[in-house]
């Protein structure tokens, strides 16, 4: 599909050399939403989980220490900015880099938790994030080889889809699916949420949702099925 039918009329571009960020109503909306959420998360404090104790009437409060709070807030802000960047970038390789940055920062947000289950899930997610660098960058490289360009503007102008482009887009899709933890690969990310520090944990979820929407749009630009 062309850019206009996917995202609306082109409002403008931000040229950074060969990397041109582009603004359409769709991308601008997602960009602003992510930024608003990032600001809200940066301002908020963490929750305290209350666990009922066994055999007593006492409650066990699980809260986040100040040091942990600071590093988590920092990483959550970086994650929000990376997600916002992934929303408006107009370059395929740039997008994969943003996705990788989101992946590593997601891992960092839960890395300081002292809960074995969460750390175990985070470790498994880290394995997937490492494996994902192959399909993400490999997909971008294959698309570069078969089209000769990485700019989404130029790719959108190409009339036909070569089989290699479809394969590259599939690689990109499986990379994004692993990195964001969608349908069959959800367990690692879902387990990572079971930890105190709610608003910072939320950005993990939000970034996945936003990135997968953008990835589908990019894949529709590459594969001209409709």
């Amino acid at each position: 599909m062309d850019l206009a039918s996917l995202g609306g009329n082109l409002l403008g571009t931000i040229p950074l050399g060969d990397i041109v960020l582009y603004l359409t109503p769709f991308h601008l909306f997602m960009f602003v939403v992510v930024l608003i959420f990032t600001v809200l998360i940066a301002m908020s404090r963490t929750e305290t989980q209350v666990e009922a104790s066994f055999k007593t009437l006492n409650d066990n409060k699980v809260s986040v220490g100040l040091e942990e709070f600071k590093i988590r807030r920092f990483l959550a802000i970086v994650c929000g900015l990376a997600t916002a960047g992934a929303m408006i970038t107009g370059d395929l390789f740039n997008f994969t880099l943003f996705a990788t940055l989101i992946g590593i920062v997601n891992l960092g947000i839960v890395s300081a938790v002292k809960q074995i289950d969460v750390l175990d899930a985070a470790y498994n997610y880290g394995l997937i994030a490492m494996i994902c660098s192959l399909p993400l960058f490999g997909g971008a490289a294959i698309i570069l080889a078969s089209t000769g360009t990485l700019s989404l503007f130029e790719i959108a102008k190409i009339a036909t889809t070569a089989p290699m482009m479809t394969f590259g887009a599939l690689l990109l899709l499986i990379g994004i699916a692993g990195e964001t933890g969608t349908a069959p690969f959800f367990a690692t990310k879902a387990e990572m949420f079971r930890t105190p520090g709610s608003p910072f944990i939320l950005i993990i979820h939000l970034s996945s949702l936003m990135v997968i929407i953008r990835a589908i749009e990019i894949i529709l630009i590459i594969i001209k099925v409709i």
Partner: protein
Amino acid sequence: MKGIGNLWNKLASPKRIPKLFSVALGLLLVIGFLIPMDLNVNQLYPRPIPQQQVEEGLAVAPYDRGGEVLKVPGITKAQYPENSKSIGWINSYMSPQALFVKSISPYFGTSIYSSPGGLIDEILYYTRGFDTILESSILMMSFTIASWLALNFTINRRKENFK
């Protein structure tokens, strides 16, 4: 229906996910062997044909990108030339030492220290500079996380409340 329930339960265990993911990726990569190869020759960042520059006898043989130091820009293509006005200048630059070695040795281009940056630098620092910023921020974030964990979980253990 019981089978589907079992399947969902198995999928809910984080330990199985990396294996499942790598199997899925492996299958896709195997299918990739069946895809007909396709290379667009009109690449954005072209390279000369192997051995072409060696046979021409250029002094910086595999890495000669044309141009003249601080006089004529080298050969670099950009996707959007209107955004990169001074393209090619990094590409053609060589330090005085490099110029000296180039003048006395015909094998200058074959050693790693000789590569005058050239095309890679042009792409990394000029036409695709934003990628470089992102790549280094990925590295910075991983070092931040690793050093934070090292400081708080291995060095400053005395502060922790052991129960």
